[in-house]
């Protein structure tokens, strides 16, 4: 059973960053988001941060913190579970 948070994050990545030819389910959980197979860069990561903050109630203060949280989909999910509003996590 796919993790609903991980699935939502992958969908958010595709929609927010306009990855037209990418199926959300095809994004590996543990591959680096920045500099990995999706060819995302630091600006993409920060764009994601804006949407993640809005959706999950997290707060990322610095570009260095963003880099750590967005190391992979798995690390991002862990970050959100730790720092996000539990009421906003997908069921």
């Amino acid at each position, binding site marked *: 059973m796919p993790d609903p948070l991980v699935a939502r994050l992958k969908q958010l990545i595709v929609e927010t960053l306009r990855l037209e030819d990418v199926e959300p389910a095809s994004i590996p959980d543990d591959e680096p988001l920045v500099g990995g197979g999706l060819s995302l860069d630091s600006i993409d990561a920060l764009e994601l941060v804006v949407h993640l903050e809005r959706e999950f109630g997290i707060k990322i203060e*610095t570009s260095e913190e963003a880099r750590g949280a967005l190391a992979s989909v798995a690390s991002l999910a862990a970050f959100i579970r730790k720092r996000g509003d539990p009421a906003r996590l997908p069921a």
Partner: protein
Amino acid sequence: MTAFGDAASTHAALMRGESALRPVPVLGGAGGDPVPMALMPGRAIDETNPPSWLGALRALAGAIPDGDWGSPERPVFVTGSNFGVGGLYALRQTGDAAFAAWGAPPTCTERLRVELGWGPDVSIISHACVSAHLGLIEASRALDAGVAREALVLSFDFLSPFVAGGFHALRILNGDFPAPFREGATGAIGLGDGAGFAVLARDRGDWVLDGQSLNNEMHHFTANRGDGSGFSGCLEATAAATRGRRVWYKGHGTGTLEAGRLEVAAAGRSFPGAPVVGWKGSLGHTLGSCGLVELAVAIESVRVGQTPGTYGRGGPAMSDCVAAGNFANGSFDGVVCASNAFGGAHASFLLCHA
């Protein structure tokens, strides 16, 4: 002109180790995280109509020597990054069309041109933080080619929620205060109001700009090539003008970590032994005007014989060449002034006495 006032006042404040940066809500009256900003006296970042920065710009323009500026023989180069973009933010937020008057570079500059009585030859050069350098280079070339007798370069950048919100979104403007050329776990910048002008002539003046150099990495919008080749590619050309001269180096140094490390390393290679200073930890990053603002402070430094050290409280300096304290500059022959910008743009020149 900075939050501290004119070049002399700014220099004096830097020498005293003062900072103009204060925590200000990133969206001004609309709130948001407090971030370091240095605003000119009497200013808030919220837009007014007419703009609250207009008085400061008029005061600065009052010091421009008389001349038929904007004529074919005396072209004007207005440089900056944001111009009246705060007006566009206010327009969008309020729907009040009156804010459109100064909103875009063409309209903002045209209003200034008319108000200051300039002729039509007013170029607008906009390339983020190297804008002022580009204005100086274009002015120099017009003079060297003999198609201008004098040239005026005017540079200004005043803060607004537009630009503060943007840098905050990039997470480099945050709650931390900048410490240029200092190591740390995280980097941070501050932003500052700034404005300045320079009159260039071919055959007279107290100061000479030599070794003007440009380079554009075209590597990434917000990052530099990791080998520092962008910095070196620009500085080496200016270094050729410094052979046989003892110089100090006025760096760009905004407070970001990677760019700071690369810049300091490149300065050390191109100008061995040159003390490196950066003032944005006190003045904030004055964006499109920083090249001219900091040139004015460098001139004042040479005039007075004292260079303010690098302001910023942080970890250890990135290199031994970073001068934390003030120093006497009388034994130096000149100062290299450098600026860098988004997209990996680099600019530098040597300033020395005529």
